[in-house]
């Protein structure tokens, strides 16, 4: 039995496996299938200052080994989250509140409201599916630095994770911009902007035209980007992108991640996260690894 616990910004997670934002709601639905207190934490659905309606449907499409989504950050708003879900979720596991906004003031407002109430805040400046806000803040290093600094000023008591977009020129430069802005940790990658076409109708499948690509097919690109980010900064990195099993998670840890998030696989296999946790324990035992945290950043390049 390996020690699966990890330390993220001074907070202990019982294991490094966290369902990724947007695939898991606030945890209640999955808790009907399995007890989610087994998870290292839960990254919530994106939370805005006020309720958002999201994009028209269809919001999802599938391609070989991947899916595309364009939900558009539909969410009930921060007050409803606090009133209805926060206490319940905190009683289960570590809460990583994913924060979305259309303006910097939106991000500031949510961070201020949740400061001290959650275990982590995760700044989503990388959603490709909303017109303003979202990824608009996460492309250029100077914007990343500004939104991070202003958000961090509002949440001095809660570690701030900045979630990075892969749709950028330089992962290392953006990672460093977030670190300089005061980020306590990074998470990456969000989804890749993609287009899926219904060739009979000669139209995009998604109502939003483009959507974010996720799933097993993006994993090697994500692992490379996590490696680049982890080696550009000194703050911890949470890795994600196409993880379907414990061995995938081990790759991200070796590339430099302290913890991992699992997204699309929650749709393919509702019990994906507990299976990955069990699989990590088994992998460590078979390989004589006493603590999963020993795996982080152990990759040696050829």
């Amino acid at each position, binding site marked *: 039995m390996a020690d699966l616990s990890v330390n993220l910004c001074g907070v202990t997670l019982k294991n490094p496996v966290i369902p990724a934002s*947007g*695939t*898991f*709601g606030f945890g*209640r*639905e*999955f808790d*009907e*299938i399995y007890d989610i207190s087994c998870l290292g934490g839960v990254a919530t*659905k994106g939370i805005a200052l006020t309720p958002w*309606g*999201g994009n028209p*449907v*269809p*919001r*999802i*499409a*599938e391609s070989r*080994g*991947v*899916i595309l*989504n364009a*939900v558009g950050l*539909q*969410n009930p708003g921060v007050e409803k989250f606090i009133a209805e879900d926060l206490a319940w979720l905190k009683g289960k596991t570590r809460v990583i509140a994913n924060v979305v906004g259309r303006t910097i003031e939106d991000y500031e407002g949510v961070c201020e409201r949740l400061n001290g109430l959650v275990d982590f805040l995760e700044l989503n400046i990388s959603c490709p599916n909303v017109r303003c806000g979202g990824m608009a803040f996460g492309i250029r290093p100077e914007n990343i630095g500004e939104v991070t600094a202003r958000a961090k000023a509002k949440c001095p008591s809660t570690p701030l994770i900045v979630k990075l977009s892969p749709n950028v020129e330089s992962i290392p430069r953006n990672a460093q911009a977030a670190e300089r802005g005061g980020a306590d940790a990074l998470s990456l990658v969000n989804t890749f902007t993609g287009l899926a076409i219904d060739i009979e109708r000669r139209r995009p499948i998604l109502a939003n035209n483009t959507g974010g690509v996720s*799933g*097993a097919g993006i994993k090697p690109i994500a692992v490379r980007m996590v490696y680049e980010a982890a080696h550009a900064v000194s703050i911890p990195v949470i890795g994600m992108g196409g993880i379907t099993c414990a061995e995938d998670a081990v790759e991200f840890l070796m590339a430099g991640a302290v913890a991992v998030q699992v997204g*699309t*696989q*929650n*749709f*393919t*296999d*509702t*019990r994906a996260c507990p299976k990955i946790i069990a699989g990590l324990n088994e992998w460590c035992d078979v390989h004589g690894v006493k603590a999963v945290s020993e795996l982080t950043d152990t990759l040696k390049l050829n």
Partner: protein
Amino acid sequence: MREITATVLENKRIADEIYSLTFAAEEEIAVRPGQFVMVGVGGFPLRRPIAVCKAEGERITVCYRLKGGGTRALAREYKTGEKLSVLLPLGNGFYVKESEKKVAVVGGGVGIFPLISAIRAYSKSKQVYAYMGFRSRASVCMEFDMTRGEKLVIATDDGSVGFHGTSVQAFMQDVDEIKPDVVLACGPTPMLRALKSAMHGRNIPVYVSLEERMGCGIGACLVCVCEKTDGAHARVCKDGPVFEINDVVL
């Protein structure tokens, strides 16, 4: 709601592009009429949402149309004895009040299959009138399971069998005579729109089961929303798939 590993008992073509899949769960599962399942297909990241047609103890039958790669793989690769990952039972299902004795069901296309579960459930204690629309004779299937009620009208677009026209047209010819207490409907959106306008002002509740592309199927991902008439978004998988026809924008 749970995730099970089921065993395929039968997976066969029953009409043009339509397959009937019967699987056995590990134990008896209570499924309400109008509920659905999410079936995992190996190699595809998303499960396929399919309405339950029949539920008899641990034996459950769903019917699906060959639509894309996933349903084709489901038809091709899941033979008798194969294991199948299934999430079930999902959604709210139809709900008919004790006092509602006359039930009309109006279906079209693959929308007829969830209505078969309603016919099976309600024909024991109520009068059920069924209006089922198909493209043509080649697509007619499961007639035996539709004949349990008081009346069955088969409608075809080309008139090759039964009523020449849509199931809505056939139903509207009879509605004043049968005076249903409630109408249950499922089918393509244009059909549901036609039913909505035809039933407008009649003061008979109409419940429709909607279809949408889904992610998780359990209400977490907010992918499969429909617009409600009050402007809010409802989750088809969790708040639906059945809605009162005047509550949703079609």
